[in-house]
């Protein structure tokens, strides 16, 4: 039904203000995109706000989508993930008082399967690059997972893993280098 090619065609129609195409893009991608925002924010309400904001951008910014630069899914993921990270960082100070998790959100948040290191493992397995990535140490993997799934910056990763800042940076860098090498070796189309 909606392959990446179809999504690209739909986005082209969205750029021409086609509301039906816009809705099709939403229907085809909303659950996956909300999952990504939720991993970063760990709060359904805020993740849904981010999804809503993101689709405002999709409507207004579809004309700026460049198939040569990114697949449609990557483009959408970037919009959502960047907004989620912005929301996370801007909301840090008020988080303590406004942190409300609904029942379902709590279940997902507590789900072992959805913790960053496990998410990384699952993703790598699906991409069939898990054995290649096995060359990374546990801390390097964890650093990469915290940066990508939780939107942590180097200082936060250093705190979380109880390591000096320089070490945390090196772990992330090493994780990214390895990811690049493994994806290229496997010839994986990422999105």
């Amino acid at each position, binding site marked *: 039904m909606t392959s990446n090619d179809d999504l690209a065609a739909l986005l082209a129609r969205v750029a021409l203000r086609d509301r039906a195409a816009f809705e099709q893009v939403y229907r085809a991608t909303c659950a996956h995109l909300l999952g990504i925002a939720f991993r970063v924010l760990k709060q359904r309400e805020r993740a849904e706000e981010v999804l809503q904001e993101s689709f405002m951008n999709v409507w207004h910014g579809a004309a700026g989508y460049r198939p040569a630069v990114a697949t449609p899914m990557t483009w959408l993921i970037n919009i959502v993930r960047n907004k989620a990270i912005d929301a996370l960082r801007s909301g840090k100070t008020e988080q303590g008082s406004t942190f409300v998790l609904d029942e379902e959100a709590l279940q997902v948040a507590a789900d072992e399967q*959805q913790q960053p290191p496990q998410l990384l493992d699952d993703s790598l397995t699906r991409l069939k690059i898990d054995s290649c990535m096995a060359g990374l140490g546990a801390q390097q993997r964890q650093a990469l997972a915290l940066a990508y799934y939780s939107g942590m910056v180097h200082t936060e990763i250093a705190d979380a893993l109880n390591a000096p800042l320089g070490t945390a940076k090196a772990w992330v860098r090493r994780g990214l280098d390895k990811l690049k090498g493994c994806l290229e070796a496997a010839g994986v189309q990422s999105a």
Partner: protein
Amino acid sequence: MNYLQPERLDRLAREYALGTLVGPARKRFERVLQQSPAATLAVGVWQERLAALAHGVAPLQPRAAVWAAVEQRLFAAAPSAPAQSAGQMGWLARMFSARSLGGALAGVLLCALVLRIQPGLIGLEPQTETLPQSYVGLLTDTSGKASVLASSRRQGRVLTIKLLQPIVVPAGRVAQLWALPKDGSAAFPVGVLPASGSGTIVLSDTSEKLFFNVARLAVSLEPAAAQPGATPSAEFVLSGHCVKLW
């Protein structure tokens, strides 16, 4: 500083894409991005690689209100269907307006369907062959013909409705769906059904809370959508068992 020196560009693009480039450095790089196609491309390559890591993230179905809000914010100036009734239940009537039926409501179903049919689209493979834990109701008419399929995930807040045959709803009436508790206590209203096709009903709580003790679902033709606490004022035209799918 020459941002376009290849190694430096790759390092900045990588950190920018990951989100670990922060503060003034991020702002500076964003200015470079606006002017340099090479920088945009370098970021794009890293974003593509990182998007691969999103494959393992479990999808989370947004509530119907999210799409409704997107539409409201973008298109509110040009409503395509008038609200069908005023008052407190006006929002419900709007949800069941013609366009929404093809849209907001059917969408939850479509979203799930698209992902089920095309899991490769976003790299999601089905984790299990079994159906998710859900509440399901199959309503038949008085002649025993299957008429309405209602289903909702156990912890979900949306009831998906599929009409297997159109309901004949006289003018001035609505097809009101009721839940009948096992213990024989009074039926409570769930929502209003579309007359044909499919749609969704946004529930007042999770299915688990609402339907845990419900044995049957039924439909009566009411003069207006039932308010919370109301009981059926007309005979049931459709009814059927409500079962747990686990």
